[in-house]
């Protein structure tokens, strides 16, 4: 067993890790970078891009790009997106260099100001030209910052939407809800940064972590497909005894989640559950079942799970989804034909749209290990993973077994996850049709208690058509 885990070692890990860069544009962006670094990202992956030299100097990023040396002279843009745009065009070469070797670019920007609104779309465009995938994290200003800023932010957002592969948009107003009214204002902004950082980190993990059931770009884009819509994002982590429940609760508490209420309206939900080697199937099952209550029966749940030795006792849940805004369809139709360099990404989107939403058929080049899984693998994996968990190289040691497990695991979990909703759907319909009189049990002879049109003496589970047994 130990041999097994020794066999699977470093070289492949390198193969799999995708070079990424996180670019913070403007001062809001570099604040977010600070947070991302604090949360454990590699410093070398961070790039700060700003017009304001002072803010740039205080940034923690390893690589810094000053925009518009001649147009702004090291000062800020004074809130003028046009100036930010000019500055970015001027320094396009430098930006290009900085992001050259990354396959995936995350852009963090606070929209509404000059640099963020003006330069972020340019950075995104340059990244796309270089052939990278671009995911933008944009914050919209607090509404008290004024309508002008809001309009600038919306403008920049729609441009980002056109260019980037995916845009995850945070409304600062909603972040504010998370903070106690008496907390200092820095805390309110801090929460916004923290949420961004969390999402960067979890999306990076989502894509990089060796998954038992992998989540790829395609899944991610499918979940974020409705552009212009509201992005729902939740992340929770817990190491308590009841960690599955706690992590999910925490994820649903995210300000972008609206306590999970929003989930019921989305058609695509992407969920990744990650944990240390000690994560059990039943935990995942409990969690998914609980999540199932928040989504509609026909919602497509794209489910992924990953085991990462670094997680230790913790278990984390990432939920990503989006709500279509009413005008999004119209916008999509009206969007100008993509320039040549924009061609590949839409292809990806279409590709995802085309195949019937079946998790098993999702192409996952990096994970497909066709080796037939011997049943003994299951046991051999489970045991060393829990028993060993060697601190020096836990992740690689588990990495290879993971892909090996894919086929059986998928059957075990995915089918379970995929089927119950359908079953439920049918069930509900059947029960609507039943004509047998509903009984009231011991309250048969007493005066009925009818509130809001419902006879409360009839068991709740019967009225709500929840199947027990």
């Amino acid at each position: 067993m130990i041999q097994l885990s020794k066999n699977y070692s470093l070289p492949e890990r390198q193969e799999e890790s995708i070079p990424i860069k996180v670019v913070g544009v403007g001062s809001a962006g570099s604040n977010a970078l600070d947070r991302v670094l604090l949360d454990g990202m590699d410093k070398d992956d961070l790039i700060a891009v700003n017009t304001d030299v002072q803010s740039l100097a205080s940034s923690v990023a390893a690589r810094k790009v000053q925009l518009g040396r001649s147009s702004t002279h090291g000062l800020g843009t004074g809130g003028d997106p046009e100036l930010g745009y000019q500055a970015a065009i001027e320094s396009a070469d430098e930006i290009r260099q900085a992001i050259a070797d990354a396959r995936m670019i995350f852009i963090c920007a606070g929209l509404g100001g000059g640099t963020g609104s003006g330069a972020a779309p340019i950075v995104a465009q340059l990244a796309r030209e270089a052939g990278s995938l671009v995911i933008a994290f944009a914050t919209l200003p607090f509404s008290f910052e004024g309508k002008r800023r809001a309009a600038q932010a919306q403008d920049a957002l729609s441009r980002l939407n056109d260019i980037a592969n995916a845009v995850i948009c945070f409304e600062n107003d909603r972040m504010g809800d998370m903070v106690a009214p008496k907390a200092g204002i820095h805390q309110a902004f801090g929460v916004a940064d923290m949420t961004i950082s969390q999402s960067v980190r979890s999306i990076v993990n989502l894509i990089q972590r060796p998954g038992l059931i992998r989540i790829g770009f395609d899944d991610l884009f499918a979940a974020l497909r409705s552009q212009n819509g509201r992005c729902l994002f939740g992340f929770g982590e817990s190491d308590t005894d009841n960690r599955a429940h706690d992590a999910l609760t925490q994820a649903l508490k995210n300000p972008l989640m609206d306590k999970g209420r929003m989930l019921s309206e989305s058609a695509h939900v992407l969920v990744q559950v990650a944990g240390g080697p000690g994560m059990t199937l039943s935990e995942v099952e409990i969690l998914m079942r609980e999540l199932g209550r928040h989504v509609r029966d026909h919602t497509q749940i794209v489910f992924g799970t990953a085991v990462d030795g670094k997680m230790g006792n913790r278990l984390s849940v990432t939920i990503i989804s989006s709500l279509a805004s009413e005008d999004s369809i119209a916008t999509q139709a009206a969007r100008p034909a993509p320039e040549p360099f924009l061609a590949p990404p839409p292809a990806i989107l279409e590709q995802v749209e085309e195949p019937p939403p079946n998790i098993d058929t999702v192409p996952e080049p990096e994970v497909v290990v066709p080796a037939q899984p011997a049943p003994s693998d299951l046991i051999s994996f489970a045991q060393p993973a829990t028993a060993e968990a060697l601190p020096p190289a836990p992740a690689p040691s588990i990495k290879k077994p993971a892909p090996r497990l894919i086929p059986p695991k998928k059957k075990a979990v995915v089918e379970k996850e995929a089927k119950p909703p359908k079953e439920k759907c049918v069930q509900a319909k059947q029960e609507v049709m039943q004509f047998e009189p509903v009984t009231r049990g011991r309250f048969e002879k007493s005066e009925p208690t009818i509130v809001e049109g419902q006879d409360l003496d009839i068991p709740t589970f019967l009225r709500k058509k929840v199947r027990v047994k």
Partner: protein
Amino acid sequence: MASGDLIVGLEIGTSKVCVVVGETRPDGTLKILGVGQAPSRGVRKGEIVDFETAMKCVHEAVVDAEQKSDVMIRSVYVAVAGGHIQSFNNRGCVMLPEERDEIDEQDVEDVKINAREVSIPAQNAFLHSIIQHYHVDGQDGVLNPVGMLGEKLEADFHIIHGVRTRVQNTIRCVKELPLEVEDVVFSALAAAQVVLTQHQKNLGALVVDIGGGTTDYILYVDGAVKQSGALAVGGDHITNDISMGLRIPMARAEKLKTEEGSCVLGNCLPGETILLKDDSGFAGKEIERETLNTIIHLRLREIFELLKRTVEEEPFINYVGAGIFITGGCSLVNGIDYLAGEIFEMPAHVTHAQTMSGLTSAVENPQFSTAIGLLKYAQAVQVDRPRRGITRIFGRFFSGMR
């Protein structure tokens, strides 16, 4: 034997009849001498449906209490509950005569009567009219206007009323025993007297008394009752749901609810089962724990959500600072505070009667909150008025209670 004034509280609940005997000490404290109880039959959803049987049960409980506390019980305070109980807020107003500008006690009496002059359904009777605040010439929040100067005196009252005949049924059941009925008290009002401290009433608190057959609630803001009422749903419904959902007898469902049930979902392993033993001790049916919890959860969630919608019809819930206090037998269900907290989005606590001396084991059981609360209520109103007897019922119900 008791040395001070004897006070006896009687609650005819859906699942049990409970009698608490207490005495007021000269120093104003209240000591519990004994608690008598008997399983209740003939009561559904807080109302008597089988007069004879219910009377027997009350008798049993009273005898039990007499034995335990070693006193003779002659008169009792009776708690009433039931879905028929309703409430509203009303403001009374009197203008002072021109030649006088100091408010005296007669004016206060007048404004109370004035506040009562509202129409309630013909078959209903007033149970309580509880003073919230006085206003003198538009000045808010006056607690005692006597002696103040002003031209116009207004008073906000919270008025609780119920169907006359149903309340009378309860009274008659006690009178036939025969026992004197000192007063009838809405059960949540009684419970709130011992569950909440004055400080919590001032902060604002929602007391939810979930008993066997009814869920009664009362909401305090600024030390005054703002909302109250009852839902005819309670612990019995949970038991009934379990019994029907799992196809097991009521008695077993009740046992399962109290011993194994929880209203928090996702806490048990998938496929975890509870083995039911049949009467002979052999292994019988297996029940999935999650199923049991789901049934309980759905029912309690519905009760709380219904309650939330009801209290949200008025704005007072937004001023509740101390949180929700859950009491009554059903509050013993595991995780109920967690569920209530989640639904109401404020802190929720399971509580029992506080600040009593005597039999502490009785005090610490949330099942007895209402009956013990009756003593506290009685003590409070007796300070206001020396004993006057039964004539008061359906007569004047203005008390200095808060």
